[in-house]
């Protein structure tokens, strides 16, 4: 029986000169990172409710949201944002919801201490949020018929500050632990290279969020950590092969060993990226508005992560001057491979 397996199209031993493109890639990466950082300063992230605090209300008008509602809300509530939320594919509802966010940032100084002042201030803020939310709904109800509250979210300034801090800790901690693990399993150059590649991915992902001003919320932190996981996955696979090939080709120059290793794992890199992107695209298109930002971040992250393990993580080993032969404990099956 003949079997179709398209994987045969991919050569088993491709010899794409990735490593000679390392200078070009390095320049591209550095420019991209600088642009991301500049964007962070000039445009900044479009923090969602989770990180700014405030009130977000989603309303169902029973029909498409009226055209004048944006004006209506924005004249009455200063600084509010009005946004149509489209329904996910396959939904039975044929009209958009309306999402109204009221940022309520009463700047609070030193509310971390449990002083009576901080407590009172927080209380005042929470009250203000509840009042604003009630006022908003009342105003809308007075103006339009058949209003239905779909979801409401209120996050106080204190909690949002905490969430921001926790998110940052999560990313930094994850990077640190991963660095430790890879250092333990490989050489320190590998650990450093992997973390540099991860930082590169995280910064570029943030860059896309800055560029398109996509809402940056808690779920995006999760997405970023998953990107960290994915990109790492990719990097470790290549590194593992580099380590193996370093033992196999003892005399070959390091650059060449790295290039062979990238090529050895190339078909796997392509296939896995394809399946992951397939699943994520389904999520992006069909997953509904709740997951749009998340899946967008992931799709971008997979692309950047794949790029970085080939063009950033691996060439960095050259830059970091990986020493050869420092690991004598070559696995036994390498010695006895005469089958």
């Amino acid at each position, binding site marked *: 029986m003949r079997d179709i397996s398209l994987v045969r199209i991919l050569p088993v031993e491709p010899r794409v000169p990735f490593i000679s493109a390392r200078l070009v890639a390095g320049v591209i990466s550095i420019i991209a990172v600088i642009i991301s950082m500049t964007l962070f300063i000039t445009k900044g992230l479009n923090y969602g409710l989770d990180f700014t605090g405030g009130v977000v209300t989603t309303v169902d008008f029973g029909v498409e949201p009226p055209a004048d509602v944006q004006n209506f809300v924005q004249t009455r509530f200063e600084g509010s944002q009005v946004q149509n939320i489209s329904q996910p594919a396959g939904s039975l509802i044929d009209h958009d919801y309306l999402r109204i966010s009221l940022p309520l940032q009463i700047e609070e100084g030193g509310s971390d201490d449990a002083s009576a002042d901080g407590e009172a201030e927080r209380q005042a803020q929470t009250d203000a949020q509840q009042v604003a939310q009630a006022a908003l709904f009342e105003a809308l109800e007075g103006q339009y018929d058949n209003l239905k509250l*779909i979801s409401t979210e209120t996050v106080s300034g204190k909690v949002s500050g905490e969430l921001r801090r926790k998110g940052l800790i999560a990313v930094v901690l994850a990077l640190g632990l991963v660095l430790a693990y890879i250092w333990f399993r490989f050489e320190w150059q590998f650990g450093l290279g992997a973390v540099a590649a991860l930082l590169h991915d995280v910064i570029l992902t943030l860059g896309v969020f800055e560029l398109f001003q996509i809402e940056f919320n808690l779920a995006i932190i999760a997405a970023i950590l998953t990107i960290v996981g994915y990109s790492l*996955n990719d990097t470790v696979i290549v590194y593992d092969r580099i380590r193996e090939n370093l033992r196999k080709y003892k005399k070959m120059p390091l650059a060449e060993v790295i290039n062979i290793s990238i090529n050895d794992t190339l078909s796997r890199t392509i296939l896995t990226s394809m399946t992951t992107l397939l699943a994520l695209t389904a999520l992006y298109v069909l997953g509904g508005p709740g*997951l749009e930002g998340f899946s967008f971040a992931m799709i971008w992250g997979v692309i950047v992560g794949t790029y970085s393990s080939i063009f950033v993580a691996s060439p960095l080993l050259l830059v970091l001057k990986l020493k050869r032969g420092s690991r004598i404990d070559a696995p036994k099956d390498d010695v006895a491979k005469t089958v």
Partner: protein
Amino acid sequence: MLFFSRWKTIFIVGLVALGIILAAPNVMNSDTRAKLPTFLQKTINLGLDLQGGAHMLLEVDLSSVLQQALVNERTGILTEFRDANPRIQGDQIRIQNGLVVGRLRNAADQDRALAVLQEMSTPVDPTQIGSPRRTEVTSVGNDGFSVRITDAQIEAIRKRTIEQSIEVLRDRIDPSGTTEMTLVREGDDRILLQVPGAKNIDEIKAAINRTANLSFHLVHPDSNQERALAQAVQTFDPETGDARLASIGTRYFPHQDTAGGLIVEESTRITGECLENSSPGVHPDNGSAIVNFSFNFRCSRLFGEMTAKNIGKPFAVVLDGEIITAPNIRGAITGGRGFIEGSFTPDSASELSRLLNAGALPAKLVIVEERTVSAELGEASIRAGQVASIIGLMGVAAFMWLSYGLRFGTIANLALATNIGLIAAALTVLGATLTLPGIAGIILTIGMAVDANVLIFERIREETHNGRPPVSAIETGYRRSLAPILDANITTLIAAITLYFVGSGPVRGFAVTLAIGIVTSVFTAVVFARLLTATWLRGTRPKSLPI
């Protein structure tokens, strides 16, 4: 690597079968599920973002409780000094910067005073040997002292306050105990409240916002002095409840309805704790709504004595810092029964009596985070998630078949399907909560789960290319890819675990599904798929590999 002992085979197949059996109830409709034995009826918990409901994070205002603890400490010190023999003459004993500080008229009294204070500093937990003390006493100069509440005592107060708050809230929101709500301590001074499918959000908020702190106070004669009262009204601070008062031991409360308030005796022994029961009722004379109450035995006596001694004088009923009513005492009330009349409606009367029955919250609660999702939005999210998962799954499966052909493609896809089953089973058994980001995690796992298989197959392809015969190529392929698979997945697992411990709410749901997905995908690719491959090899003994 390709030999599996019989027991190992049975174990692996059994594990997979068990996973599928445990996951199966999730896809049945509720009628079919009801016919299953009870241990199989468990399904995956849906997060509030998927089933609709209210999620609130409440912060307990501990500062007021700690302040009260200081006030009590000061009162205790004053009483002990007075009762000491001979009496200790204290001077300017007051609360300052979270300490009770004071001086003594006679420096000679200092040693005795310190001894008394030490005596008062009982262990935090008397049942425990070596338990830390409640307070820490230090001498100041040669005639002063300061008393600090120890961290251990603050922690005990914090714990007790939160536990009590949780109990009271449970009684208030769900007196019948029928709702599946979550009410747990979170962090240092927060309570997480989750009510699935909640429609009466406003009622819940009302139950949280009212502390329902009830007390009965005698009205102080200062209330009749215009200057004293005017000064109190003008200096009254609604945030802290403080006002400048003419006499010591008095307190000013505003009236709930009318503009003016009253100055009352600060100390009282008739508080909400006295209540045995309360119920809404109708005034016998004018038919207005009232709240009936009955006191427990101890308070009935106290209340009897208080009313007997003060016939003709007014007393104030204070609820949450506001006077509801201030009637004149017409006669001694000895039965411990009575009613409160104010400007109640039948609804507000029954709400108040319900709150009183549940007890007072020991501290004020502030809603610091609130998220509500309507049931229909939750349903829409689930449907979208389902559609995306199925399409994603089909896409990946088709891709694998196209790439690796019928045999290896089938092995990979069987492993993938098993993986999904095992994730569902793990979520069901662990009682983990599936959230919207959690669904994303599963879909992502679908994409990434085949990675391990791809790695193995690519290795096999390489080994075949290097001239190994099929069995040897497969054997080596599996063995050589084990290390990179483990390394790659452990690193991702580290990220997932970090996310779980540092993240909060829905993000945790995502971390759980991601972590479970990593473990199950390694198992299905490295163990289960290997078993399938070995079985296929034994059955067909191919001369060349279709890869």
